[in-house]
């Protein structure tokens, strides 16, 4: 089974949700076309930092998508950690009552900020992973002053060794060699291969440094780059199976709700 650990949907196109240029049906059709069986997806807000009512609406629409595409879409609950009480309520509700598989965090706060700690503790309690937006670049990113990188995730992982932390898109733009190396000593940090960048050697280096057991296939809507970079990597059949879905299936099986 091929599981995309980092997918997005567009929602209803009414302005609150971030649109990926296509309807949800078209995005799922594209996933089908490239051989993805399950898309672990979130819907993000257009407005950033995400207003409370907006991320609540995104999660409502993600839940609707899991019903519209049963078996094909699993939901990430997207929250702005700044709304701590509401975010915790949102996560518990959508994991326990709507079958969501994880938590999506964007760039409102660096993941080392203590404001995230209650969310990580709830993720551990529920047995779900956190997909953390991340990038490491060698100059400031003015539009994302609070973006995290895999080094930040390593710090968080050391504080919470039971947490399952997914470092988003090593191919999302940035120094992917730095990203991979900074995650080396954090056994509970997983690397997601998604993003539009498909440089030679990226996936193989991830496997070499952190091990195939900690590498997760993802697209982040870059479908052909997502599949193509895995095809290009020289992997054993066992490594390929782990990356394309085996590891994510193992993570999903930890859900306690």
């Amino acid at each position, binding site marked *: 089974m091929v599981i995309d650990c980092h997918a997005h949907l567009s929602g209803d196109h009414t302005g609150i949700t971030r649109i990926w240029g296509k309807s949800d049906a078209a995005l799922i059709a594209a996933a089908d076309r490239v051989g993805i069986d399950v898309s672990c997806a979130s819907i993000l807000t257009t407005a950033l930092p995400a207003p409370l009512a907006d991320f609540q609406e995104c999660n409502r629409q993600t839940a609707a998508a899991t019903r519209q595409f049963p078996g094909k879409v699993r939901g990430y609950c997207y929250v702005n950690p700044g709304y701590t009480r509401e975010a915790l309520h949102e996560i518990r509700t959508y994991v326990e009552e709507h079958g969501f598989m994880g938590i999506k965090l964007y760039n409102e706060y660096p993941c080392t900020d203590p404001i995230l700690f209650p969310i990580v503790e709830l993720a551990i309690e529920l047995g779900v992973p956190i997909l953390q937006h991340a*990038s490491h670049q060698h*100059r400031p990113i003015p539009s994302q002053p609070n973006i995290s990188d895999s080094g930040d995730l390593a710090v968080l992982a050391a504080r919470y060794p039971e947490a399952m932390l997914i470092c988003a898109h090593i191919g999302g*733009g940035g120094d*992917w060699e730095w990203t991979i190396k900074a995650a080396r000593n954090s056994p509970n940090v997983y690397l997601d291969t998604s993003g539009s960048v498909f*440089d*030679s050697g990226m996936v193989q280096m991830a496997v070499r440094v952190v091990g195939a057991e900690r590498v997760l296939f993802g697209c982040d809507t870059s479908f052909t780059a997502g599949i193509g970079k895995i095809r290009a990597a020289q992997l054993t059949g066992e490594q390929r199976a782990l990356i394309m879905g085996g590891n994510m299936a193992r993570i999903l099986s930890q859900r306690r709700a």
Partner: protein
Amino acid sequence: MLIDTHVYVGHWGFRPLPWRGADGLLRAMDAHGIEQAWVSSASAILYRNSHAGNEELHAEARGHGDRLVPFAVINPTYADWEHDLAVCHEEFGCRGVRLYPPYHRYTLGDSACHDLVAAAIARNLVISVPHWVEDDRERSWLLAQPGVTPVADMAALAQAHPDGRFVFHYGIGYTETALGRRGGVQAGYGLDIARLPVFVKEELPRLLAEIGPERLVFGSGMPLTPADVPLFKLEVLDAPAAVKEQIRWQNARRLLGGGV
């Protein structure tokens, strides 16, 4: 049949590549069914004197003329580039020139660049311009300026030289320029499909609809990026087999041969 219009030998200074010489390139071509590759020196991008990279390319490609089509890297702001161009064309058998404006401190609109392009056209050479060498978000702390050549500049260059033949690589957003409009550019040109989205933004299908398959070519950027991605794009592209053959090799062969 498959012709790869964008391939390298040599070094890239900021990360290791899967191969450096023609032997590795030929093995990769065999593995992907690529019969012919338009190859230049990656080392020449960062060498102060790019022509040293052309000389290395010549040493690597010599004896493989049936499969490797050499392209010269020429910096039109560097001393004696006219001599380098002549040597690459007349002695090394180069069939095109490849330009890296952001790495060689000029733009496609500069008069020096137009002089080079005119000289290349006079020699019946193809002009090859990559949008970038790697995603600019990866840029080393050593490089102060973005390593990106805007696709709008590519369109303006092609419009300024209607008698030229161009091939543009790694680009995205052509649909916002004259290159993406039927009749927008009189010159012969090809756009490689390496980064063109098939899904979501659907630029590849939109270009097919707007300018037709004649302007699209296969290009991988190997070994910077693998051929598997553009091959997969062709695999899942919803287009007739005849159209895919045009993209795989027919358009490139026509472009290199002088057709537009």
